[in-house]
Each structure stands twice: as structure tokens, then as C-alpha cells.
């Protein structure tokens, strides 16, 4: 809890991380799925000795190289930057737990990047057999990066036996490792097909255009049929509470019940279905009439589905960042009773003697709420608290401390509020001052904390 706090007004930490991640995942799709697409398609071109298909692959690889090595690498670093600042406690845990895993990830990533460059710059300079081997090398390295990162990402949703043994391999090969790996492979391969449609739509020679578009549809459609099956497999292995959160939204679409999870989930199902039909009636049945603009719109739909799918997957983890271990605000679940007893801010470096209740409350807000909420922007406290005065905010916060679902409907959606009654009161004072519902303007007075805070030098 003593990492510096990153306060992003209006957009919020979640907003920043979400935006960068959505952009990055759209590129990563192509980086990994493209590897498989290049290898299989070049194999086909080699077998049929079709120069038209080779030309298409060469053009696609230029687009691919630019997109994955520039936009992909920059946004990848962006994620590290945002997550390290936004949720340092979780990154700390992930780095410590999977040190070897991260190291392997970087080895495969460097190999992937190097092969991508060699693949593009050796078109026409080495034999077709050698170039085909390079395509397969790239495919293997890119899939290996997924094999590693998938273990860490799936661990965050289902840490499994790691929770009790702290054995990193047990955490790595957790319950959702295999279904998520196959789901991602399918989604990434499909995304590569969508990128390929964009480049194929611009092929001048009509016969080659028809051939490549119909081939890519054949690559694409089966994946959309396998996708729901592996998706169901993944769903079956999720913690029951996470599944309940999705199901809540079947009946209601209100605010505060996490129905957004269900809504984005249904939207991704709808769009997946329409993309499938789109591929059939567009590039497959009418390849000559399939324009570049249509391909771009089609790709945007696909990338949108990917983004909301990732959003849903990330949100499923709530209220945890590492399921069953660490809450999304970085508080370790097992430490909650102790922190409630001795005080959440007791060991904080960000409080000091002489702070007013509002300042203490703000420290509480920054440490426990800011990860998911903002003051006036995304998931704004001002909007969510509405007209509540200090008294009703206090009652609401006290409810957030309860762990019984009957008494606190936010159990399973939000982390429990942690702190002593005085800290909770200070947070209520701050929030009522924030929303303008405070009975009296905050008075400069020293807060009565039950412990001596550490003085910041």
C-alpha cells in the first residue's frame, strides 16, 4: 500500500489501462494469429506455386510488420507503464511469483520480433523452402509468447492450488489455462483472417482476389464455430461467483449490479454471429464486390468484439485482481480482518500528523477507491453517491465493510471497505465534501486516529 498513488482525473486508472489494453489486444491478435495464418497460407502458396498468393502474402507481411512491431510494441510497453503505476501491488505479486515465466516471455518475444523482421526482409532473397521455414518459425515463437503469458493471465482469474501451496507452476497451469489458451488461439487466428481480408480486398487481379478471399473465409468460418465451444469450456471452469455476475444481467440492466458484464458478453456473442454471416455473404459469396471499405468496417467490428471480450474477461475477475487472493485495489484478502482492527492507514507513508478528517478520508479514497472510481469522471463518485449526505454515506460505507451477501449486495462486485470506524468516518466526510452534501464545510482539525501515523519526512 505504500507505492505512490497514480491519480488520473476523469478517465481514471481503469480507463487508462482499459484503453491501452484494448488497443494492444487488437494488435496482439494479429501478431500471434498472423503467425499461424502466414505459415499455413505460405504452405498453400508453396504447394500450388501461386505467385499471386505470394504477392498477397508479401503485401500482408509489410502491413503486419509495421503494425505489430511499431503499434504492438509501443502499446505493450504502455500497458506495463500503466499497470505498474495503476496497480503496483498486483504487478509486484505477478513479477515475484512468475519471475522465470516473465523471463521466458521476453526470450520468445525477442525471437518473435527478430523472425518477423527476417521474414519480411527476405522475400525473394532466399529460397521458397527456406522462407516457408521462417514462416513456421515465426508461428511457433509467436504461439510460445501466448503459451507463457496465458499462464499468468489465467492465473489472475483462477490461481488454483497456488493459493494454498504458493507453487508457481500450479498457479501457472491452473483450471482455465487450457481453455483460455485454446480460446485465444482461435480468436487470434480469426482476427488474422480479418486483417487478411483488408489486404486481400485491394488485390487488383480478380481471380487472385476471389481465390484469396474465399480461402481466407474457409480459414475463418470454422474458427467461429470452434470459438463458442472453447468459450463454453472456459466458462465452465470459471469460479461460480464470476458466472453469477454475468447471469445477473439477463434480467436487469440497471446500474450497480454489474449488468454491464452480461451486456458486453451478449454483445460479443451477437457480433461474433454477425461477423460469421458477414464473412459468408461478403468475401465468400461475393468476392468481386467485396470492397476495401467493407473489409475495414468488418475488421473494426471484429476488433470491437475482441476488445469487449477482453473487457468482459477482465471484469469477470472483480472484485479481485488475483482471484481469491488480492482485491482489485491491491489489498490482500487475508489481511482484511487485521487491517480492520489496527487501521488501514496505520502503516501508510501518505498520512501524517495534523491531517484533517477530509485529508485522511482522501487518503482512504485514493488507496481503496481510486483504482476503479474517479471523483467526477468514469464511474464517478459524484454520480454514484448522488444526493446522499454524510450520514447516509457513512451507513453505505459501513455496509460495504460487511461480508455477508444478504447485508451487502456489493459482495462479489466490490472489494470490502477496509478500515477502522474512524477511518470510515473520515472517508464519509471526504466523500460528502466531494459531492457537496456535507452539512458543514470541512473544518481544519486534526483527525482522531487510534494510532500514531508515520510522519512523512
Amino acid at each position, binding site marked *: 500500500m505504500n507505492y505512490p498513488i497514480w491519480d488520473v482525473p476523469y478517465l481514471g486508472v481503469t480507463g487508462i489501462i482499459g484503453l491501452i489494453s484494448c488497443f494492444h489486444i487488437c494488435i496482439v491478435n494479429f501478431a500471434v494469429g498472423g503467425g499461424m495464418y502466414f505459415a499455413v497460407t505460405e504452405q498453400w502458396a508453396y504447394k500450388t506455386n501461386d505467385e499471386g498468393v505470394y504477392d498477397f502474402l508479401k503485401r500482408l507481411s509489410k502491413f503486419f510488420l509495421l503494425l505489430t512491431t511499431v503499434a504492438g510494441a509501443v502499446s505493450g510497453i504502455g500497458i506495463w507503464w500503466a499497470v505498474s503505476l495503476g496497480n503496483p501491488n498486483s504487478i509486484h505479486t505477478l513479477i515475484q511469483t512468475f519471475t522465470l515465466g516473465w523471463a521466458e516471455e521476453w526470450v520468445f518475444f525477442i525471437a518473435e520480433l527478430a523472425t518477423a523482421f527476417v521474414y519480411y526482409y527476405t522475400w525473394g532473397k532466399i529460397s521458397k523452402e527456406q522462407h516457408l521455414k521462417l514462416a513456421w518459425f515465426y508461428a511457433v515463437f509467436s504461439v510460445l509468447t501466448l503459451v507463457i503469458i496465458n499462464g499468468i493471465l489465467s492465473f489472475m482469474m483462477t490461481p488454483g492450488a497456488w493459493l494454498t501451496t504458493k507453487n508457481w507452476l500450479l498457479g501457472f497451469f491452473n483450471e482455465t489455462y487450457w481453455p483460455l489458451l485454446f480460446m485465444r488461439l482461435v480468436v487470434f487466428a480469426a482476427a488474422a483472417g480479418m486483417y487478411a481480408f483488408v489486404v486481400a480486398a485491394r488485390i487488383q487481379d480478380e481471380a487472385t482476389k476471389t481465390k484469396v478471399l474465399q480461402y481466407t473465409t474457409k480459414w475463418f468460418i470454422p474458427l467461429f464455430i470452434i470459438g463458442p465451444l472453447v468459450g463454453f469450456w472456459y466458462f465452465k471452469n470459471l469460479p461460480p461467483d464470476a458466472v453469477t455476475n454475468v447471469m445477473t444481467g439477463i434480467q436487469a440492466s440497471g446500474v450497480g449490479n454489474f449488468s454491464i458484464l452480461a451486456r458486453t458478453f451478449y454483445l460479443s456473442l451477437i457480433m461474433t454471429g454477425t461477423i460469421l*454471416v*458477414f464473412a459468408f455473404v461478403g468475401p465468400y459469396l461475393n468476392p468481386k464486390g467485396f470492397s476495401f471499405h467493407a473489409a475495414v468496417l*468488418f475488421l473494426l467490428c471484429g476488433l470491437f468484439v475482441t476488445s469487449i471480450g477482453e473487457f468482459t474477461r477482465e471484469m469477470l475477475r472483480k472484485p479481485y485482481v488475483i482471484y481469491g487472493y488480492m482485491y482489485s485495489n491491491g489489498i490482500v484478502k487475508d489481511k482484511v480482518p487485521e487491517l480492520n482492527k489496527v487501521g488501514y492507514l496505520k502503516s501508510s507513508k501518505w498520512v501524517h500528523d495534523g491531517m484533517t478528517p477530509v485529508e485522511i478520508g482522501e487518503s482512504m479514497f485514493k488507496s481503496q477507491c481510486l483504482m476503479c472510481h474517479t471523483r467526477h469522471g468514469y464511474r464517478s463518485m459524484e454520480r454514484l453517491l448522488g444526493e446522499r449526505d454524510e450520514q447516509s454515506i457513512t451507513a453505505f460505507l459501513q455496509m460495504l465493510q460487511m461480508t455477508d451477501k444478504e447485508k451487502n449486495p456489493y459482495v462479489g462486485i466490490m472489494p470490502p471497505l477496509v478500515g477502522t470506524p474512524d477511518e470510515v468516518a473520515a472517508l464519509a466526510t471526504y466523500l460528502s465534501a466531494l459531492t457537496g452534501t456535507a452539512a458543514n464545510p470541512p473544518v481544519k482539525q486534526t483527525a482522531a486516529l487510534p494510532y500514531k501515523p508515520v510522519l512523512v519526512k
Partner: protein
Amino acid sequence: MMAQMLKNKVYGWLDQRFALGTMQELAGKKTVPVHRHSIWYYMGGIAVMFLIIQVLTGGLLMLYYVPEISAAHASIVTINSQVDFGWFVRSMHSWGANLMILALFVHLFTTYFLKAYRPPREITWLTGLGLLVVVFGFGFTGYLLPWDEVAFFATKVGLDIASQVPFVGETIATILRGGADVSQATLSRFFVIHVFLLPLALVALMGVHMLMVQLHGMSRPDSVKDQAVREEKFFPTFVLKDLMVWLLLFNLLAAFVSFYPWGLGPEADPFAAAPAGIKPEWYFLGMFQFLKVLPAYIGPFEGEHVGMALFALIGLAFVVIPFWERGQNPVRKMWAELFGSVILFLFIVFTVWGMLL
């Protein structure tokens, strides 16, 4: 082999009964010109797609909706919070209605500016105008059905405005209300109009409209009339493209539904004071705003009467335009373009103005 035989058998059976071969032959002859304005040819199809969604979702909503003032609001609450996927179907219906009206507006104005109303397409144009009026009717009557505060007072205001139409306004408003006030009679009448009368009118008008489109084909705008443009087959080429556009817009609708589910205000209380800032839906907002800014009296006439008369004249102008501007007189063409541009400009300006207030 077996599959092919089965396919032939099924096709043969259907062909005998529905003359598929003849239809295929007809469809094969129909072509669509390809030029820089071709994109506007998709607008009618888009409106049809949204209409299909309206019919399907409207039918589902009727399973739970109760057209009775003490139960209407509660039935919508049930749909929104207890029926599986109820909120989804209702949001599809409400968002779909708005997108359909938007598509129709775009269709109307692009048809107008591309001069597709000219002979021999007068009936296509007139039935199109009729369809727009019917769709406005759907919007107006459907808006009251949830019986929430805003719907109640917006309908009250809307009917008061309608009663200002010279000569017939009061009679029409009284018939629609079923009396002097918005009450159970109004709700019952609006429900019947929404689910029975307007659909009948829609089917009739749309049948004629589609028949005319098939008979006369796609019109070519002046700018490409004398150019040699490529023609593509309506079936399957244009139909397949149409399907792609439908799918894209269906995705847009699904996104609206998912991210902004349609809300519901507090139940209407006819004895309460109207909440401040009552506004109609966006497609009536321009007219509403225009009436609002008119002075109480213009000369010896009431401002609202003048406004309603002006709307009637504009409507009349749209009706007579295909008989007046027939593509033979450049001056008339210029006036028609100017008239359309002014109306479109004013519609946008007053709508945005109304939204900002």
C-alpha cells in the same frame, strides 16, 4: 450424389408451387447502377431491416405489456427487471425505432436531392412520404405506452399542439385522446393504433412502394445520367452487399442496446405538475422548438396556428414536388434544391437548438 438428388427434388417441389425459376429469371434481369452516389441506394433497405426488428421485438413486448393505466408502467418494470432478456428486447425496440426513423430521414432527403421523385416515380415518392407519416405515428403512439412521467406529459403537449391545426386539429386531438384529457381511453386508442391500424397502413403503403421500386428500378441522378456506368445484378450481387450493410447496422444497434439500455421514468401522475423541460423525441424536436420560438401572435393570428399552417404547407410542397419539378425546367430544379436545402438546414438547426436547451 444423394445430397444433389435431394436438393434437386426440394427445388423442383418449390419451383412447381412458387415459380422459383420465373422469379430467378426476373431477379436476374434487374440491375443496379454503380456510381459515386450508389451508397444512397442502401437506405431503403436499412429502414426495412430496422422495421423487421420492430415487428419482431414489438411482438415479444406484447406478451408482457398491459395497456391499462394502472398496470402499464408496472408491466414495463417487469419487462425491464424480471423477464429474461426483457430489457434487451425493449431496448432493441426503442433504439431500433429511433434508428429506423433516422434511416428514413436520410432516405427521404437523399431521394429528394437525387431527384428520384421525378416521373415515373411519383407514386414511389408519395408512398414513401406516407410511410414516413406512418412511422411518425408509430413513434408518437409508442412513446406513451410505458406510461411514465415524460411520456405522459410529452403526449399531452403533443396533442395540444396537434389541436392547433386549423379546422380539423381539435377534432383529431379529441378522437386521439378519447376525451378532453390524456387518460385510459388515450392509452387504449394509442395501443390499438400502434399495434393494429398503423401496421395495416404500413403494409399497404409498403406493398405499393416496393412494387413501384421493382417496376421502375433505381433512378440515376442527373450527374451520372449521361455517363456510361457499370450495372451490377440486383440478385445476388446487390442483395449480398445489402445484407452486409444490414449486419453492420445491426451491430450498431446491438452496441447501443448494450451500452445504453433504454430507461424508464417514474410512473405518470396525471394530477402532478408537468416536470420542467418536457421535450418530445428528437424527430419532433425541430418542429416543437420552432413553435416555441414563434411569438404568441403573428398579426391577427395565433403564433402556433401560423406554425402549424406552415408545417402543412411544407408537407404539401413535398407532396406536389414530383408534379412541379419534372426534370425539364432548370429554374424549377434550382428552386426545388433550394427548398430542400433550407428545410433540411432548418430541421437540423431547430433540432440541435431544442436539444441544447
